[in-house]
């Protein structure tokens, strides 16, 4: 008995170390590394979640997505302005006319209308949403992708554990204080594929030949400095060369999709990013964030919101549809969120300003109950009046869907204790 457990453990560890060396860095991924300095924190007394989701696709609307003009419409109220409300494929669930395709998939969506926070500036709000912690100048907190990798490990040794798709120069909720290999791989342009992964100006033969030259020139150096950090590079080169010819690399190439499919997601970076996200999770990447900015609508909200919504609507609807048809929706949590909502009162520039007090987000897939609206704001969408959900609660819900241990404390290198959703409580009502 004992031996069996040990050998299991050994195999697992070996697997973890093996995968660790492969895509992004050196050192063990998964709990192998974390366990050494992990300790149990307060127990929230939650039941374990069997059959938890394996992946998360996190669609982030940068700038503050207006709640009144997307998922929390208030027909007839003066705050509503131009935006009309439409029916969905679920009775009693109504959303904005700007999201007609998602309306047809409302049965997959858990719409949360009662998010509430106090962080009303972009960076602070964005950081809080991504990490559940307030931004501090003394530490960086990991995001949900890094946490899920830390607990679950990487699934495909030839691909990165988590990927960020978007043009942002600064992102929140990356690897945080975890080891560098927990940083997501960045894809700036989903159409460009994985950077530098193809031969450049040489054929395979020349490439191999040149590589052997490099090895010859470096032999003496390697003999002299047979140390871990030098050896790590040898390993890394072997992996890089292997990845260049591996089938997995095709995942990054959207040209492998039919033209019709690509069109279905929308011919724009966000749409194609969602398509890439789908391909990545299908190939066992744990976490993908697709970022879509431009929601900071201080002016002309009734002009800008429909434009942004059209792109969001098409891409997210295609993504949910595909995931379901391919049987991946059950083990993939799709999150649509943002840093805050926008002022219900329309300002003098026909825009809406920052409004963290009440806003909306959506979770779908991963065992979440669809066709639901959770929480409520008052008649003008100004105050949460039912089932308030704080940001850590929202993230705890996502983490819970992913089966992550919410009460497991991990320590930063400076020995400060942290948990995946900062002691937030998951909204258990949302689970089927």
């Amino acid at each position: 008995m004992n031996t069996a457990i040990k050998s299991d453990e050994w195999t697992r560890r070996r697997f973890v170390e093996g995968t660790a060396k492969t895509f992004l860095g050196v050192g063990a991924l998964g709990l192998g590394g974390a366990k050494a300095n992990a300790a149990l924190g307060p127990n929230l007394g939650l039941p374990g979640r069997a059959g938890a989701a394996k992946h998360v696709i996190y669609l982030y609307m940068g700038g503050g997505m207006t709640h009144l003009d997307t998922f929390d419409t208030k027909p007839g109220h003066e705050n509503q302005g131009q935006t009309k409300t439409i029916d969905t494929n679920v009775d009693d669930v109504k959303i904005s006319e700007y999201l007609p395709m998602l309306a047809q998939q409302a049965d997959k969506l858990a719409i949360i209308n009662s998010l509430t926070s106090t962080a009303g500036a972009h960076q602070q709000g964005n950081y809080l949403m991504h990490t559940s912690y307030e931004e501090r100048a003394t530490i960086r907190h990991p995001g949900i992708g890094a946490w899920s990798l830390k607990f679950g490990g990487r699934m495909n040794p030839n691909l990165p554990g988590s990927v960020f798709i978007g043009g942002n120069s600064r992102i929140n909720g990356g690897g945080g204080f975890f080891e560098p290999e927990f940083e997501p791989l960045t894809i700036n342009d989903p159409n460009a594929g994985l950077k530098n992964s193809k031969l450049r100006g040489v054929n395979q033969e020349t490439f191999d030949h040149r590589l052997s030259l490099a090895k010859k020139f470096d032999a003496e150096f390697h003999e002299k400095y047979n140390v871990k950090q030098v050896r790590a590079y040898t390993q890394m080169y072997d992996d890089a060369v292997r990845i260049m010819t591996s089938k997995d690399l095709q995942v990054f190439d959207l040209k492998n999709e039919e033209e019709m499919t690509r069109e279905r997601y929308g011919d724009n970076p966000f749409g194609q990013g969602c398509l890439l996200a789908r391909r990545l999770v299908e190939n066992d990447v744990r976490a993908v964030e697709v970022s879509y900015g431009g929601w900071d609508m201080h002016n002309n909200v009734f002009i800008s919101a429909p434009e942004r919504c059209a792109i969001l609507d098409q891409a997210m609807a295609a993504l949910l549809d595909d995931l379901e048809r391919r049987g991946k929706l059950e083990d993939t949590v799709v999150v649509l969120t943002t840093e805050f909502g926008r002022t219900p009162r329309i300002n003098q520039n026909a825009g809406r300003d920052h409004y963290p007090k009440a806003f909306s987000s959506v979770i779908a897939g991963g065992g979440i109950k669809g066709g639901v609206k959770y929480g409520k704001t008052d008649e003008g969408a100004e105050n949460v009046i039912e089932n308030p959900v704080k940001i850590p609660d929202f993230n705890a819900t996502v983490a819970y869907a992913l089966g992550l241990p919410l009460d497991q404390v991990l320590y930063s290198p400076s020995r400060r204790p942290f948990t995946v959703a900062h002691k937030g409580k998951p909204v258990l009502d949302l689970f089927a």
Partner: protein
Amino acid sequence: MKQINLFSCLGLASLFLATTHAAEFDVRKAAAEVDKLVDAGLRKHDIKPNTAIDDDTFLRRAYLDIAGRIPTIEEAENFHGSTYKRKREQLITDLLESDGHVSHAYNFWADVLRINQSLGNGAAQAEAAYQLWLKDAIKNNKPYNDFVHDMVSARGKIWEEGAIGYYIRDRGMPLDNMSNTVRVFLGTRLECAQCHNHPFDKWTQMDYFKMAAFSYGMEANRYNSPNQTLLKDFQREQRNDIFKKAIAIKGFPQLSNEASLKRYVENKNYQKYLDRFEMTDKQFRQMAKKSIAAYKDYEHESRGMRTAMTELYNPLRYVQTNEREKTLKLPHDYQYSDAEPLGPVTAGTMFGDKIDLENIDGSTIDAYADWMTSRENPTFTKVIANRLWKRVFGHGVFEPVDELTDQTVVANPELLEFLESTMRELDYDMRKYQEILYNTETYQRAANTQELVLGVPYHFQGPILRRMTAEQIWDSIVALALPEADSYRPRLKTQLSSVEKVRQIYKSLEERPGDEYLAMVKKLGDALAKSLPKQEKIRDKMYKAREAEDEELYRKLRGELSDITRESRRLVSKIGYEHIGEKVDSADLLAAVGMSEMAMNMDDGGSAMSGNAGGVVLTKLPSVDIPKYQSPEPPEGLDRNEMKKWRSAESAAAKKFKSEQSTAMRYYKGLVSQMARASELESPARRGHFLREFGQSDREVIENAAYHASVPQALNLLNGQIVEALTNQFAVFGKRIKEADDPEEKTKMIFQAMLTREPTENEMEIARAEIAENGEEAYDGLVWALLNTQQFIFVE
């Protein structure tokens, strides 16, 4: 208001501070003393020192460690060709004074100080000023104690004092700012004591708050000026007038909406209120309606002016830091018996001398900075002496360098003591101090080949083998590709003018007489208000166009709407910022970077300059000549017709050559358009950039650079464009290879440039075989192969 001398404080002050003390200092003697102490430590632990390194290894190491890049072929030739007996010593001195060193040290400090793009968000001009200030401080070798004092006590505006970036970086986070200050400069980790007594160290939460109270008054957010106060008074009067007209009852509340009415009605003193006004509930409510209507009127009337204010002050959000009287309070859940929750905190030092706040000369923050940077401060000197030691040798005498506790193990206490006293004796001259360390035999020994065990002290048998920093790798390639890479600062002009622009905006707003200022805001407000109904009309048309699915009309209207926005922005600039566009004296601009006018080559980027120690700044790359087609002599004995044919063929060949060359040139220009030393690019670079893949710090937390291997790094070197920056015929290095005479020489040159050494006989043999087989292409292959060796990216 006093007239500000443009950029005066970004500039030259530190030039005059190099002490005579340091000049007379005997570097050799001090270096010998360091070696003696290190050797004693080694003997004590029965460890043999590593062997001394040869000139090649020294040259490469010194360039990388001091100037942040490998030496060029010319620099290597100069060094090897020198017959000067103490040429290593000379090289160290020269490199420490070079522009390359400024760039390299900038990357280091920017990581320690977390200088990221726009200092987080929205403070691009402050970032520019902070960058320029820091580079200037390094260039002029500002003594470390002044350097820290400048930052910790920094007040003023970005065009007077670039060091205020220190507080702008942490705006809104005064407690974290203190934690970072104490960690970086005093080597103590206090952040755990913010919420409770430190679990692993002796610090109490009270210690934390007493320290935080010193800098709590430092404010880097929006400011108030006399003109703004004037405007607020004006707006209040405007509002009062409107209310007075609407409601004749004196003292009746000005209600802005239903919610504020509700607050009155639900207040427990509501009845008293009614009594005071001798009103019934109904009367009050009626009057309240009038009040709310009056407020709407006010909002309508003032909307232009309010928009004007927002627009006018937008660029001035983060441009100054002031010290205010502000009392720090304990947290609401303070749990210890020495004080009450939410009680006020009096500033007090955590160790060392006490500061008597009642009897200080000047401000609290100055007293705090004095205490911090004092020679008597128990850890200030120790921390910098050890930090710079680590920078030179790759490992601290104690580790971590910023976490001194009672349990800290010092590998060699006598050495540390000597380093500390040397730093004091040098009056914190960082350049001199490093000069000592680089001149030691200890530094000039073979790199350590054993793996360090965490927590076991290292005794310095030689420096540690290190992977180059991301910037060292990038800058090495840049230096091989571009001429005068160290003095090439393509963003300098933009940075200077961005600071200058906000200074002019500030001047336009705050240095106007009050009445003129008010009139200006009113005028702008009126102009902006006029465009509001226009915008409304267009919007309505757009809603209709959308409904009718008239895409063409919609797009046309969208254009019109953007035109109005653009026009508004123009109005703000035209009416509001009268000083914008004023010609700036270029001498002032130059003073900001500490150079005389003669030295700066701002526009034409001529290629005549040589050397980089002369303080020449290039803001554009020197132009590269395109080679001309060399037409051969016509063959003899051609008849007229044949000659004509020959001529036309030649002319076609010349044309083809020219077009090929200009295509190649365009390619080269594209290739190098985004290249400059890392410190002169957007910094840190964007995610996904070569620099970031190799671990350039994101500058989010202190010293966040990484050195681990990753697949994207390998892919970058294997398949990235970067190798072309080396082999391209117009690149400095590529050109030299092309021009070299014979295969042996070309091969030697490639090894010299890439690895700073001659090829071994064996390597030469391999290269010969390559050349025999692949001809000219072989050279590209050699460069590529060497770029993909580990000896290229490790500092031996």
